[in-house]
């Protein structure tokens, strides 16, 4: 029984807020350090690519953003499910806050892809399977955000968004597979992104570091946003009033 106490405590926004004050700082500094090291290593010290020269270096933003954008959807859908099952207010807040961060990362991945595509492929936009899937992921995020915005009633917004993100999660593998299939049917696979196995280790290490760094950054952003959301929703409680008035 005792081992489950942390789980029930998670349901209390106040407990979460107090506990994460320290964590948020640690994770924030860690994210900053990892991002700085990763960016300097990737942009300054990793070797230039044989064919693409220096333009490939955008990979150090592009790939981590794309990876975390996908993971962000699962964070959102999973928190939604926890909210629906255990009726935990806090997990709805996590769900709500994960959506705009995930959408921003998806946009970053699409944008850096377009910037990278121009020198490499000659076009800003190519109807490639992975790009199209990312665009649809972006739309899925926008749908959840639009629904969240549309409801005046917070409880309705939370629950409907949770159902929508779960439906989206069931659909994501189907969408990805069908877009893959559509791509192989419609276009010859002439354009290939650098494959993971073919990347040189000197280029891969900063990339791996950057992926972890962006995960860390995501965690920091999410925690910060959730903390603000907690204050916003619990504004009528005494403990929030104490914090805002500077009593504590």
């Amino acid at each position, binding site marked *: 029984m005792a081992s489950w106490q942390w789980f029930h405590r998670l349901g209390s926004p106040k407990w979460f807020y107090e506990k994460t004050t320290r964590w948020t700082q640690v994770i924030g500094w860690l994210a900053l350090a990892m991002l700085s090291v990763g960016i300097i290593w990737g942009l300054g010290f990793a070797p230039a690519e044989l064919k693409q020269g220096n333009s490939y270096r955008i990979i150090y933003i592009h790939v981590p953003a794309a990876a975390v954008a996908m993971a962000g959807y699962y964070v959102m859908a999973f928190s939604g499910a926890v909210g*629906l099952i255990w009726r935990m207010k806090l997990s709805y807040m996590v769900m709500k806050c994960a959506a705009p961060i995930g959408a921003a990362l998806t946009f970053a991945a699409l944008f850096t892809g377009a910037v990278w595509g121009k020198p490499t492929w000659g076009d800003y936009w190519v109807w490639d399977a992975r790009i199209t899937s990312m665009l649809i992921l972006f739309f899925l995020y*926008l*749908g959840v955000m*639009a629904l969240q915005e549309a409801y005046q009633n917070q409880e309705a917004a939370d*629950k*409907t968004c949770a*159902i929508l993100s779960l*439906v989206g999660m069931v659909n994501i593998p189907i969408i990805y597979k069908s877009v893959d299939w559509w791509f192989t049917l419609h276009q010859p696979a002439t354009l290939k992104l650098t494959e993971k196995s073919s990347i040189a280790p000197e280029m891969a290490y900063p990339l791996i570091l950057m992926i972890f760094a962006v995960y860390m950054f995501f965690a920091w952003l999410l925690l910060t946003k959730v903390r603000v959301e907690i204050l916003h929703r619990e504004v009528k409680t005494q403990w929030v009033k104490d914090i805002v008035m500077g009593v504590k």
Partner: protein
Amino acid sequence: MHSLPANNQHSSLTTALTTCFRREMIVAFRHKGELANPLIFFLMVVVFIPLGISPEKTVLMALAPGMIWVIALLATLLSLDGLFRSDFDDGSLEQMLLSPQPLPWLVLTKILAHWLMTGIPLMLLTPLLGTMLYLPAEGYLPLMISLLIGTGSMSLIGSIGAALTVGLRKGGLILSLVVMPLYVPVLIFGASAVNEAVQGFAYTGQIAILSAMFVSALVLAPFAVAGALRISVNT
């Protein structure tokens, strides 16, 4: 008295479903305008294609399979907002929620009625559109089969969106935003079945996948819709 309920409940479920279905049909036929609107939309958009792109036969022939599918998808989207709207407004949705019958079954009956009233007419109208866009003769059968199955999936998936937004005063646009990404797989396989057939290839694979999507949606969607309706009505 105690031996009765099991049997009683079963027969009352059947009664409830047939009553619900009959009511849907009566309501639909008394609003004939609403029935016709998606079809008129379907026809009107088809006129835009030669006007906007080119009236040439070769161009239209190549566009026809995908275009008809895209327009059918949009026409289905338009019809979705009305799925639960009037029932929500006049309180019959609440009665459905309160009734002892399992909600997913009642929901499924409503979706079936929606499909019969929008999907099937859209499918029946496609030969006309195919002629207008010079769809090659081999394309007609796969187009109708893929639309028959595909509109079923679209009604099922779309009803989730309709249930999620029924509590909103202006849910129409949000409903489309929410549902459209979920329609991507249906569109891909539906349109490609027709394209493959036009190019002389077998299209049974696409039809099989469309059917698989339909069956999965049939099994899962009613539960999501039921959950969403409970939230929309209770808050």
